[in-house]
């Protein structure tokens, strides 16, 4: 009875939560405003290439001249390497256009979906389909 009662409660919230659960990252999804996207132009302050997740700090200046210090995470270094990112992808002062999924609490924090450089070069945190046949010959 005890097991069944608690499981009913768990399953009731599960239905809602499964609609909200994104597939990326390993440190949890509960924090993020799932599905919301913000696109911002900013200046890179710091790029941290480390476990458990890499993260990018960048400053965004609004029309009134107020600067917001943003921080946005990606996944871990091996997974980001597989997506074409590297330890030296950014240097302080780089101008970038960053798309983030922000956190729910309104802080300037989120996770990176995409970064575009002025020359059009784009880095994405989403998995691109692998091209069959590119694998090394065994």
């Amino acid at each position: 009875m005890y097991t069944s009662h608690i499981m009913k409660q768990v399953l009731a919230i599960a239905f809602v939560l499964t609609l909200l659960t994104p597939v990326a990252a390993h440190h949890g999804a509960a924090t993020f405003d799932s599905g919301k996207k913000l696109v911002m132009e900013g200046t890179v302050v710091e790029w941290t290439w480390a476990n458990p997740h890499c993260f990018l700090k960048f400053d965004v200046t609004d029309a009134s001249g107020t600067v917001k210090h943003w921080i946005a995470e990606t996944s871990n270094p091996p997974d980001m390497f597989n997506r074409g990112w590297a330890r030296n992808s950014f240097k302080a002062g780089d101008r970038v256009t960053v798309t983030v999924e922000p956190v729910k609490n309104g802080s300037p924090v989120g996770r990176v979906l995409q970064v575009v450089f002025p020359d059009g070069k784009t880095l994405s945190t989403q998995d691109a389909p692998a091209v069959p046949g590119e694998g090394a010959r065994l």
Partner: protein
Amino acid sequence: MRVPGAVYDFDRPNEKPSPAPRRELSGIWEPALGPGDAIQATGAKAMPSDGKPEHELPFTPEGLEAWMKNKPAWGVRMVPSALSNDPVPMCDPQGFPRILLHNFRTSQIVQLANQVLVLYQFNHKWRNIWTDGRALPKLDDGLEPRWWGYSAGRWTDDYTFVVETIGLDERTWLDNVGRPHSFNLRVEERYRRIDRDHLELTVTLTDPTFYTRPWVALDRLRLRLQPPSFDIREMECSPTETAKYNKEFAEPAAGVSATEQK
């Protein structure tokens, strides 16, 4: 997505399987369907925590109570990561069988005369599986718990290697959604060499204290043999890097500080 240099099944759509070697597991193995196929953020692949009734685990009351004490950052009971009590992000050992049921990436199997070693990419860990015919130790109060347990393996035929593991530390979670286990957990891994390039892995968990019946956590996960030159990228849990991540990202993301209770 692919790990550069790796070979996946989609690279060889028309390949004819070569015969499996007898009693042979050595090599570097990668999930055959792609690098993310065994990264199980929402819990054990065969029983994810997704709210579907068919994935409800057969908890005993004691097992369910233990699960409720865990605060995972994923699954139906997820909390913000800064409020989770998951031991892994703090760099405590994920242990066994979580290494197979959460972040199972490239692994290297080294087959020696008296044991099989498995080297795992995630957090740079390894296991020893004895094959010298020894019996597993007696599971009683005198047995020292181990993060990685006590493992013994045997060939049940020329292509099937079965490993039994006991003595697992109760502080580890079974998977990324906080499923618990007791000290009475017994894990069976069944490795089936189906052809030259493939292994299939099935993991069955038996824990009568926390679960009313055995359950399959991984069901014939397909692994693919990689070139001998394949270089496994380092992936390590650094407490210093983790502290920086928590302070600068996870805590502001959750709107909490490190002084708040988890």
